[in-house]
């Protein structure tokens, strides 16, 4: 991706000024720190403020901790019964609304993703407490489904009224014997966004499930794919490619995943992190407790996919594997190139803006670059500074008052199961050859000079940006889609993919090229004005000729 200096249509400083001028002074000061004009140089990255509380009334795009925990991390797992302890809404809104595809055919069998389960708390539960009802609901779920695990999720009122969901879960787990019951304190008000929910989910899955698996995984080249949620079948495409290369993905966190996958994740030899924000905690804990190193990968974009496969090959350092990887790449790339060449003349030079959760705003820039499109502005809803600036800033991050109560769990090397996957010398040699472990450089370094990076973009700023920079495409989510399109700018959802996908891997790249071509070249944008609106106002009586 280019670090060459290109000019944006308007001076970024002027744009930043315009974004801030309408705000009350306090709000303007705060937002100024979350809006950054990219001046990343070889060794320095400008500092952005991120992962701080949302400004009330600003019309944020953000969701809550519960969404990050239940909706994102545990939602895609098919054979765990997810029971939401709260009033009905939280369960209802997370019911099949994220497009985590799952294949529960064949031996897998169980699939609870089509069910929304809730204790549907009533006012009496708020007044007298909901523990009894929760206990009963867990029992009823067990009696009906006999699942291998039941996960309980707290919602806003649960923490306030003091229901001890962990005690209830423990009691029921002991009672059942054959069903793991565990709970998540993911009340919506915790932290400042979905992000806290990721962390809470990581902690509890690691604590209650990872490493408990019975099954011995003895396949060669075992990896975990961390932070891939199989939206629109992304994970299926990645798995197809991995399998073709002879790499075994033993656990995806958590697209198309099963309880057993989580439980045996400790047996992998390498963790590959897709979405850094949501799952880096598990990656770190797997390394500390079991000795599994992790690398950052990106399967969004054909070349990014090839690069990530080669990284995996380099890690295992097996000649036959590397050969297969090269063979797969040379087999898959020509079709991608063929479509890219056909489409890129129609997309070359066009501009995009990307404002997506905590990882895609970065990953998708590679795909746009492959089409010759420039990303002139990007940002995350809830990423932290390390996602923007790279993990080297981790040491200097301060946890503020709003996120202080998110649990950090202490993990140490497992006396029995810790096993270094590589010797210290081997690791040193891999690093010398350029493989980076536990490393993520963040989004900013990959962006053009003068591009505008905005954290926690709001409705006002989105409209203003579109108005001033007139991008050819705007990428965000469902809440933003239609207001942007009303402005006459095509909008691509990069959460739900607008029901499309997959966009990962080689086939995904082809799908994406076609989709972007469709969007930026659609005829509909030419219909916004009626023919008579183009002509000057009629002054004289119209005469039929």
């Amino acid at each position, binding site marked *: 991706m280019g670090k060459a200096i290109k000019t944006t249509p308007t001076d970024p400083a002027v744009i930043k000024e315009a974004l801030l001028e309408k705000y009350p002074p306090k709000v303007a000061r705060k937002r100024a720190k979350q809006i950054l004009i990219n001046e990343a140089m070889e060794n320095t990255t400008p500092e952005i403020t991120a992962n701080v509380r949302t400004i009330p009334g600003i019309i944020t795009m953000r969701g809550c901790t519960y969404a990050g925990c239940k909706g994102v991390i545990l939602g895609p797992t098919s054979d765990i019964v997810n029971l939401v302890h709260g009033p009905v809404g939280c369960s209802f809104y997370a019911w099949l609304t994220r497009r985590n595809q799952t294949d529960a055919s064949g031996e897998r069998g169980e699939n609870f993703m089509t069910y929304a389960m809730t204790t549907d708390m009533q006012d009496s539960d708020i007044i007298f407490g909901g523990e009894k009802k929760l206990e009963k609901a867990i029992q009823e779920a067990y009696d009906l489904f006999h699942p291998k695990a039941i996960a309980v999720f707290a919602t806003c009122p649960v923490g306030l009224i003091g229901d001890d969901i962990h005690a209830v879960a423990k009691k029921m787990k002991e009672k059942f014997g054959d069903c793991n019951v565990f709970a998540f304190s993911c009340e919506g008000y915790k932290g400042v966004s979905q992000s806290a929910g990721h962390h809470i989910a990581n902690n509890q899955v690691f604590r209650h499930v990872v490493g408990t698996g019975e099954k011995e995984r003895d396949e060669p080249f075992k990896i975990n794919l961390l932070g891939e949620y199989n939206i629109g079948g992304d994970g299926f495409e990645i798995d197809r490619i991995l399998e073709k290369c002879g790499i075994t993905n033993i656990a995806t966190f958590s697209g198309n995943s099963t309880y057993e996958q989580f439980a045996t994740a400790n047996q992998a030899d390498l963790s590959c992190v897709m979405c850094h924000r949501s799952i880096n905690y598990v990656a770190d804990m797997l390394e500390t407790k079991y000795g599994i190193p992790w690398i950052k990968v990106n399967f969004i974009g054909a070349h990014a996919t090839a690069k990530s496969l080669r990284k995996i090959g380099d890690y295992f350092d097996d000649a036959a594997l590397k050969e297969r990887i090269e063979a797969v790449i040379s087999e898959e790339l020509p079709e991608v190139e063929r479509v890219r060449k056909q489409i890129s003349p129609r997309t070359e030079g066009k501009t995009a803006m990307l404002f997506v959760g905590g990882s895609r705003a970065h990953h998708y820039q590679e795909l746009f670059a492959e089409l010759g499109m420039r990303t002139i502005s990007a940002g995350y809803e809830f990423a932290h500074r390390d996602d923007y600036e790279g993990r080297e800033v981790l040491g200097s991050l301060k946890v503020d008052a709003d996120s202080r109560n998110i649990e950090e769990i202490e993990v140490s090397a497992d006396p029995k199961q810790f096993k270094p996957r590589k010797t210290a010398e081997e690791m040193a040699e891999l690093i010398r050859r350029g493989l980076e472990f536990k490393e993520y450089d963040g989004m900013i370094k990959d962006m053009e000079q003068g591009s505008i990076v905005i954290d926690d973009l709001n409705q*006002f700023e989105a409209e203003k940006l579109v108005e001033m920079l007139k991008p050819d495409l705007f990428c965000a989510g469902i809440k933003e889609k239609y207001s942007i399109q009303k402005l006459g700018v095509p909008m691509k959802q990069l959460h739900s993919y607008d029901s499309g996908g997959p966009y990962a891997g080689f086939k995904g790249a082809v799908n994406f090229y076609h989709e972007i071509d469709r969007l930026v070249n659609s005829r509909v944008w030419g219909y916004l004005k009626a023919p008579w609106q183009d002509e000057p106002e009629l002054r004289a009586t119209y005469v039929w000729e």
Partner: protein
Amino acid sequence: MLLKHTPKEITERKALTINPAKTCQPIGAMYASLGIKGCLPHSHGSQGCCAYHRSTLTRHYKEPISAATSSFTEGASVFGGQANLLQAIDNIFNVYEPQGIAVHTTCLSETIGDDLPQIFDKAKKENKVPEGKFLLGAPTPSYVGSHVTGFANMVKAMAALAKRSQRRNGKVNILPGWVEPADMAEIKRIASLIGTPITMYPDTSGVLNGPLTGDYAMFPDAGADINDIIASGDGIGTLALGEWCSADGARLLDTQCKVPCSVLDIPFGLQATDRFVDALRKVGGVAVPEELMIERGRLVDMISDMHQYFFGKKVALVGDPDHLIAMTEFLSGLDMHPVHVVTGTPGKKFEKRIRAIAEAAGFEVNVKAKGDMFLFHQLIKNEPVDLIIGNTYCKYIARDEDTPLVRWGFPILDRQGHQHFPTVGYMGGLRILEKILEALLDRKDRDDSEIEFELVL
């Protein structure tokens, strides 16, 4: 099978709700607030609720849904959200410049006991509310009732703004209930045909079915005018459409401003529309115009033409109480048998009304208020039906049970354009019938053998 863990045998559940046939209050309040001109809905809670409610409404309407939130943090959740709401009010009026803000609450702010009127007072005292701008608020605890209750609570909060002056304004207030934007437009059209002047609120027509022009107005020039809402205290009467959606608001107008009210069903189908038209005719003291008589006649004609396909067909209905009551009556009047009728919204009257309709029509009905779609599915497994009518979530049941589905109600997430076509009134009745017959005959065409397959049906 997508719902393969649903057993046929129905066991009693006391604590576990599975696949709810309702959602929570605030989304209803948000929808209602969008029906006030220039109004920004505001969710006083943590921001996840607001994001979910906006997303669901957007997915249903394929339109922008603007709403702000107090974005509670853990601190605010413990010490109260007053500071958050005050900040929000200030920011909203500065940045988005609405005519006013309609605040609703969530389980969070209700559990901690935030007092909206007190916070509003403080906002006004601190000059955070510009001259001429309005604030209204409704408590909408998610742990009471359902989304329908939330809608009703916001409508009630609108009615609470009504003031009575010396003179009646000669208008009939109509509280239309939770219907689609095109339904609201249709209700206005019917009233204007009859010639009875009305004030209707909320009114989302023109707000949630807007055009694509290259300009985006967060506040389109549509919706119920706040001054008309205030003046509804001078109305000559109120027609509340839907007991669950609208009755509380209408009764408040009665007690507060002595505007007499009559609670009707939402005019879905022939019978409920007849009663609505009759009521408007009587309060207006006018005759029903020929044009409307022709529309009614068309609907009756269609019922007669289609009757052979409807007669004796079993239907399963799930949705919101006011919708289901009118639909059950309409279908029974076509000689169809709505044998399973389930709503997630609580209310004892519901089961009673449905039973009365079934009894009058002479069929047995399984009816459940505060039921869920897991139970609904089980009922269908035990007594299969020819047709399911309900929201998008029914498609999983329809697929598993290989039963035709007509999408109707809220939310419809997987089809587009529904907000442009009314299902209320005689015209809406035609559309419901067309959709039902389409579903039944598509299935017949799919299932018939090559020998039975026919050109003319």
